[in-house]
């Protein structure tokens, strides 16, 4: 069974349609224009008070916020994609504002080259060092028989004492260049022997030092002999 509104809508649709003649609308328009031109109407319009917004906007806004649709809007706003500024943007702006020097333009490239060269050098050095090899370290125990040196050395020089005492008698000979040269030779050997004796004292158990000592004493012996032979001759 159909409801009354449905029946009413159907009946309205079935009502006969009245077509208004065109001149009717023209007449109405003319009448309205005449009313507007009437001074009384104009005066009445001018006396109308301007319509101001009521003081109820906060309340309306509050009511709007309460609205479910506002919440949806707020959520949608919160989910809007955020735009992040890139650092390059500011740098490019800065560079456009400030004219750049050659150093500013190329320091990165220069730094890269320096780091690359340093890196290559360090790698090269590392490779060089890495080839060093400590192969072994070991302790070996053994025993052997050695000759221990026992030396006693006279420290008085009899030859010099002899020459000193005799040069009083043989002044001319002792002043001769060849004798003075021999004496210098002898004293050089004696000085060298003193150095050697000191070294032997500090570095005991060094057989080659004793070998030198024996040799130098033989040399000094020969020179001393030459001096005495010269004084005799």
């Amino acid at each position: 069974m159909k409801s009354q509104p449905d029946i009413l809508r159907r009946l309205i649709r079935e009502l006969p349609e009245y077509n208004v003649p065109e001149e009717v609308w023209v007449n109405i328009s003319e009448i309205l224009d005449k009313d507007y031109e009437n001074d009384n109407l104009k005066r009445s319009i001018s006396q109308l008070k301007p319509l101001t917004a009521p003081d109820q906007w906060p309340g309306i806004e509050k009511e709007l916020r309460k609205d479910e649709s506002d919440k949806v809007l707020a959520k949608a706003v919160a989910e809007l994609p955020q735009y992040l500024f890139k650092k390059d943007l500011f740098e490019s702006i800065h560079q456009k504002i400030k004219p750049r020097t050659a150093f500013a333009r190329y320091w990165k490239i220069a730094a890269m080259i320096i780091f690359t060269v340093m890196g290559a050098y360090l790698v090269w050095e590392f490779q060089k060092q890495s080839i060093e090899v400590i192969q072994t370290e070991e302790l070996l125990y053994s025993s052997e028989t050695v000759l221990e040196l026992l030396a006693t050395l006279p420290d008085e020089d009899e030859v010099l004492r002899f020459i000193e005492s005799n040069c009083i008698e043989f002044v001319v000979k002792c002043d001769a260049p060849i004798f003075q040269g021999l004496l210098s030779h002898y004293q050089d050997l004696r000085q060298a022997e003193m150095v050697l004796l000191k070294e032997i004292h500090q570095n005991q158990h060094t057989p080659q030092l004793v070998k030198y000592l024996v040799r130098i004493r033989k040399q000094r012996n020969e020179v001393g002999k030459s001096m005495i032979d010269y004084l005799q001759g």
Partner: protein
Amino acid sequence: MTGYRYIVVFFLLSMFPCISYAQETVQVITGTYNRTFRYSTGDIIKINAEKARITITGSEKEEIIVTTKLISKARTVEIAKSELSYHQYTIEKNKDVIDIENRIVLPKHVKEFQSVLFVEIQISIPTEMELQVSNNYGNTKIENKNGKTHVNSGFGDIFLVNVGGELKLKSYYGDLKTDGLAGHSVLDLVLTPAEISGASGFINLKSSLGDIVIDNPGRLRALNIESSKSDVTMVYGREQEFRYFLQADFGELVIPQSFGVAPRDEITNRLIWTYGDPDKPEINIKANFGNIILNVE
């Protein structure tokens, strides 16, 4: 004057040191350290050692091989082992320089060594590598070496075999023996007798209180010797010809009879002898209080 002779004999006998030896068994501890470096052109090796027996051999290999033995000898193993730590040995490479150094240091709280400490260092280096070696109280031997070689030795013997290039050598107390010396050699010897065999190239030698023997020289280009209180003897074959300038002050100048006789200046007591073609290699020897002897075989 016969009384003088007795006095001389008595004095000379009294000058000899009384030296004797006694046998003893000792314990030996040897610490061995090996290290190898790769060689790059321009690398230098510097050795600063004491009481070290150093042997350096030139090689065709492009590497430096160092074998070091730190040795301690004492009556007991404990003493030998304890005093082995008195060796202070370092080997390191800084840029293009390899430094090798050893010292024997007595700790402050110890009065004296109870052991005999010494070092043996054997090194193989490329033939052309620059070598600087300083060694005191030890022997130094260098074989098959070219390039720059500097040797500074004190109280030690030096042996050079087939050493060429640029050699600078200083020695104070020791023996020098060379075989096959070549290139440019500058030798400064004090109290160091020298035997130089088969030498060639250029040699400049100064010697004081050490006799010099030049034996069987090879292709000598020039030989200059200044000696003081030392004898200089040169032995070579007849086929070799030189240009000579020999000068002996307060000494003898002995030359073969076929070369004539050197005249002596009686006032200055100087002997000068010159001989030979100008285009021959020059032998220039000046001796002060020493003899010059030419022995042509």
